[in-house]
């Protein structure tokens, strides 16, 4: 018999003895799922032994196995070691912050993560400014800083009928606490010319990804981030410096940031070319993420043990500002009730909501919808498709970034399924 099994048997014997001794037998187990049981510390052999590694940089329990997965039908890493798209396990999320290790990742065309020595890294602000400036990382950390929670979401984060879990339908968004210098602070320091309307932000990676960003956004709330969740920004997130354009599509949040060029026109970089359209409606949807929400529990692929009480939980966000309200439907969108906002809704940040629910055991469909502080309402998939349909042609695809409502069907056996058809 293996050591593990021996430990388990010893543990059970001990538990039974303790349970008997204190008379726990009278406690009625909820839902009939659990057995008479009292948690006790395992035998010394099952302790997590102290190690230099655990002293220096702690790690999670071996019983926690929540991980990211490659996304978008392409391997990450591929055989060359390039990463493409990696999705966060929202089904396991609690609270509002995505742990840095689980934050989603996206790249322009697949990318090696550059291994940057922060002492060698520089940020240049130049172009239509009075005083071009080069900052070292040390210089930037001397500047006045802010710390804010913001989500990032990939423009391609959309639910499809073939997806079974929330990690596939919504895993290309995450939320972190970011620390850095407001872009407006360094732009004012450089002295932007009155006729400068755009900035081009550029990374140092092999494609040197660059995006044109409107000056109004640059001066509003863009951040030059060196901190993420209380430590330096992770390499996959742009170490040592990334741009955050709160509420804008993921691609604008330039990683490994080395340059901000102030210009007087849209620069039509390769990233900008990705947004090229002649449809003014589609063009208008190319920056700001719409109001969006998703129920993380219960969500696709999860199994409810039976009828009874559940706290429905989920995340809501908007590129337009704070989440002001979240509504829940347990009858497929026929009736709606307010969810509770947990914590504090912050601008362009994931906001946790919950809803107390007594499930009667019958098949039903759960939905959530987000209403933001500027009055935008998350559309149902039907409404979004109606918008994109023309007289002659029924739309089957939501153009732009898809922020439509995610329906989860709870089957009578407790299985939870993606109800997008």
């Amino acid at each position, binding site marked *: 018999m293996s050591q593990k099994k021996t430990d388990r048997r010893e543990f059970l014997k001990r538990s039974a003895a303790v349970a008997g001794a204190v008379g726990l037998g009278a406690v009625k187990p909820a839902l009939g799922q659990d057995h008479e049981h009292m948690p006790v510390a395992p035998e010394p052999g099952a302790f997590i032994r102290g190690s230099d590694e655990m002293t220096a940089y702690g790690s999670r329990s071996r019983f926690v196995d929540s991980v990211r997965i490659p996304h978008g039908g392409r391997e990450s890493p591929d055989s060359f070691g390039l990463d493409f798209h990696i999705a966060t396990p929202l089904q396991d999320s609690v609270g509002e912050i995505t742990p840095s290790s689980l934050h989603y990742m996206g790249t322009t065309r697949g990318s090696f993560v550059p291994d940057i020595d922060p002492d060698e890294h520089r940020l240049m602000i130049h172009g239509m400014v009075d*005083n071009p400036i080069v900052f070292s990382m040390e210089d930037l950390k001397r500047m006045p800083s802010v710390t804010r929670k913001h989500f990032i979401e990939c423009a391609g984060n959309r639910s499809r009928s073939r997806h079974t879990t929330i990690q596939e339908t919504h895993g290309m968004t995450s939320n972190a606490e970011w620390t850095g210098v407001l872009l407006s602070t360094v732009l004012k320091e450089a002295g932007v010319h009155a006729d400068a309307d755009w900035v081009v932000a550029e990374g140092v990676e092999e494609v040197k990804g660059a995006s044109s960003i409107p000056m109004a956004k640059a001066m509003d709330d863009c951040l030059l981030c060196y901190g993420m969740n209380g430590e330096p920004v992770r390499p996959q997130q742009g170490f040592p410096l990334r741009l955050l354009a709160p509420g804008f599509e993921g691609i604008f949040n330039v990683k490994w940031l080395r340059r901000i060029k102030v210009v007087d026109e849209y620069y039509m970089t390769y990233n900008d070319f990705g947004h090229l359209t002649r449809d003014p409606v589609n063009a208008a949807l190319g920056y700001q993420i719409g109001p969006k929400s998703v129920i993380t529990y219960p969500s696709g692929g999860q199994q409810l043990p039976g009828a009874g009480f559940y706290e429905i939980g989920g995340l809501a966000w908007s590129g337009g500002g704070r989440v002001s309200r979240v509504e829940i439907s347990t009858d497929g969108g026929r009736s709606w009730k307010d969810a509770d906002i947990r914590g504090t809704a912050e601008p362009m940040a994931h906001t946790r909501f919950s809803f107390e629910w007594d499930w009667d055991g019958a098949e039903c469909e759960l939905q959530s919808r987000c209403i933001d502080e500027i009055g935008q309402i998350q559309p149902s998939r039907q409404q979004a498709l109606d918008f994109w349909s023309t007289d002659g042609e029924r739309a089957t695809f939501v153009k732009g970034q898809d922020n439509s409502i995610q329906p989860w069907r709870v089957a009578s056996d407790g299985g939870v399924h993606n109800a997008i058809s």
Partner: protein
Amino acid sequence: MRSAKQWIALKALRTLLLATILVAGVVSVKAQSPLYGVGRTPTENEIRLWDIAIGPKGEELPVGSGSVDMGSELYLSKGCAGCHGTLGNGGMAPRLIKRDAGPNADPWDYGRVLPIRSPYATTVWDFINRAMPLGAEGTLTADEVYSLTAYLFFLNDVVEDGAELNEKTLPQIQMPNRTNWTQVPDWLPGQPRLEGYPY
């Protein structure tokens, strides 16, 4: 009712305020001086070396020239054909030659192909220069980038066979979509991304 003295005092205050605003306006037109003085001023040479973002006007293009002929050789010798296909299609990497859309085709029917859909020739030069070839980015000379750009434009009937491009002629190329696209509307904080969306 105000006394005359109060009225005069108010007028004086208003004049003073107006003057202050005017002076502030004049000052803001002059060069702004740094508030914190952190960081250093880059040299002209440093800015030129860093500045690989080529705008539609092509002002940042380096002096140089290239030809369709040179480009067709470089397309093979630099390995472009390996990923993009010998004739700009059929490889793993994005297509570089327009789709056949028949006579009098709408440029948007050629597909999402950079060297034909892009409104500006500068975007093509810029991307080859900054991001190609895969694994050897930044190794092409300016002349080589002009040549490869010329070859891709030749493949897409944007320039004639034998054409040469340089920093003056490249921004002059009239791409079929030069004006045939929509600018994103002015972005303002606290505004819906599209009024009335989705219903």
